[in-house]
């Protein structure tokens, strides 16, 4: 049983953004502007645990992106993924979520014999969280999103605990499945020193559109969504009003007055 984890390289959580002529750029005060999408760390960890605890033979990391995405894939290898594949082609640029789903589905099919494909909840750049279900549709597999625990993988089926809008459900589904993960699933490990050395020596192959027999349905031309208009979040209006008084009780009274006036209580 092979397990695939789909990951994306994103700006770091501490990055400062600027927008000029419709292009978004960012810098990071810590000097590490790009990271593995933080939500993906739980999916990567779970892929490795499926190998360690549930009999998966391979834990393969896949990333769609340009050459710089190799760094994210190296992190996956350093954590313990057995293989990493960069899926990259000029024709992929500007894909909408459905285009990306087509690319990922083709890559997962190309790996072959995959029973579980894992995703993070969403990527912290686009923040849409659409690719999990859409990739499942393109594969024809069952999507299970917001997975908080994997309880059992046995007899060709999987039992997971999912978060829902009202609580939690335990769900059983036959393999293959696409899983969207949440933070509660596990505590991601840090890459080990040996892992980092191994990752630096590993060969990460690149699969192109031709390798995957992708002909259309991807890239900017096929995108049905225009998200080119990106701009800075307008700052909050006005300055903070610091409430000062002789006693904390008086401060509380003044603040309460303000909040009743604002009609938020």
């Amino acid at each position: 049983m092979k397990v695939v984890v789909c990951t994306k390289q994103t700006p770091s959580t501490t990055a400062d953004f600027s927008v000029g002529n419709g292009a978004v750029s960012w810098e990071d005060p810590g000097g590490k502007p790009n990271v593995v999408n933080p939500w993906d760390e739980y999916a990567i960890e779970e892929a490795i645990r499926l190998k360690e605890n549930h009999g998966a033979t391979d834990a393969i990391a896949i990333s769609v992106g340009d050459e710089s995405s190799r760094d994210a894939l190296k992190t996956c290898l350093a954590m313990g993924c057995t293989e990493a594949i960069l899926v990259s082609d000029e024709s992929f640029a500007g894909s909408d979520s459905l285009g990306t789903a087509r690319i990922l589905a083709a890559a997962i099919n190309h790996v072959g014999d995959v029973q579980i494909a894992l995703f993070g909840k969403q990527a912290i750049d686009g923040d849409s969280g659409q690719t999990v279900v859409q990739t499942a549709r393109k594969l024809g597999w069952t999507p299970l999103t917001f997975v908080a625990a994997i309880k059992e993988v046995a007899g060709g089926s999987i039992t997971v605990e999912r978060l829902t809008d009202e609580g939690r459900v335990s769900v059983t589904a036959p393999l293959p499945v696409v899983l969207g993960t949440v933070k509660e699933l596990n505590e991601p490990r840090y890459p080990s020193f040996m892992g980092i050395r191994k990752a630096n020596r590993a060969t990460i192959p690149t699969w192109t559109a031709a390798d995957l027999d992708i002909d259309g349905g991807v890239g900017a031309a096929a995108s049905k969504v225009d998200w080119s208009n990106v701009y800075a979040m307008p700052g909050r209006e006005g300055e903070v009003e610091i409430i000062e008084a002789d006693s904390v009780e008086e401060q509380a009274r003044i603040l309460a007055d303000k909040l009743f006036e604002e009609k938020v209580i």
Partner: protein
Amino acid sequence: MSSVWVFVENRDGAISTISKEAIGAARYVADELGEDLTGLVFGEAVSNVADAAFDLGCDDVLGTDDETLKDGRVEALGPLVVKLAQEHEPAVIIAGASILGRDLTAWVAADLDAGLISDCIALEVDDETVRATRPVYAGKLLSTVFVTVGVQVISLRSRTFPQAESTGNTGTAEWVDAVVDEDDIPSKVVGYEEQAGGVSLTDASIIVSGGRGVGGPEGFEPLRELAETLGAALGASRAAVDAGWIPYEHQVGQTGKTVSPDLYIACGISGAIQHQAGMRTAKVIVAINKDADAPIFKLAQYGIVGDLFDVVPALTEEFSGRLD
């Protein structure tokens, strides 16, 4: 048949809050486009939900009353909405961005080969096109997004649109059969656990939230008391969750929940950019912090520089006197 559709999520015979918001937003879109609004009502024993959808302003209701739809499984709902959309060709399909709403819109857009915009916080109609505003890059930037061709599938962030109100409208729903038999639905629900007590963060109109300054698990007690007095949910920063003082389900921020309450009271939270990403769309933010230079004061409307262990109990006292 009308050409703006809205997914009417329901539970125990009642329309969920996020769907009331979606109906309100979809009504606006339908009016701007000069089209009728159709509510999609699915579940078991949902005829009263259909009546409620009419009352909230739907012109038509397309519904399916079937046992397979009661668990909210996307493999049952998705094919049904896809088939209905292929038959009726709506121009716009809108849903609240609940967990089920997100799953359903992604499924439907994939199968219809349609453009999808998720988690929108504002909508405008420009000619035939819906222009949606959504936060990107963890809420640090905004984007105006639109579907360039074909069906427009849109999900809406909770608590960012006003709920539809009762109109007194009535009508007769059109009931159709489910399209997937139970035997053909891959996933089976084998256990169910209701959310533990307390107010859910994403639905809460007031949130009292604590960070590093709370100092330990017992430090959340005064916050809990203030939350109870205000009928508020209890939130936390990542620092407090990572320290093990409070469970993850309370975390607000980039790797926690995104919330848009009317009032957010941040106690002992410095206001790191990752935390701001989860709460900056709150209508009013109050910051209580010892450190007058904490970034949270740049975001807040009202601030008290002081020890939260003095200020929070004083607020509880003040509000319990006035809210009786």
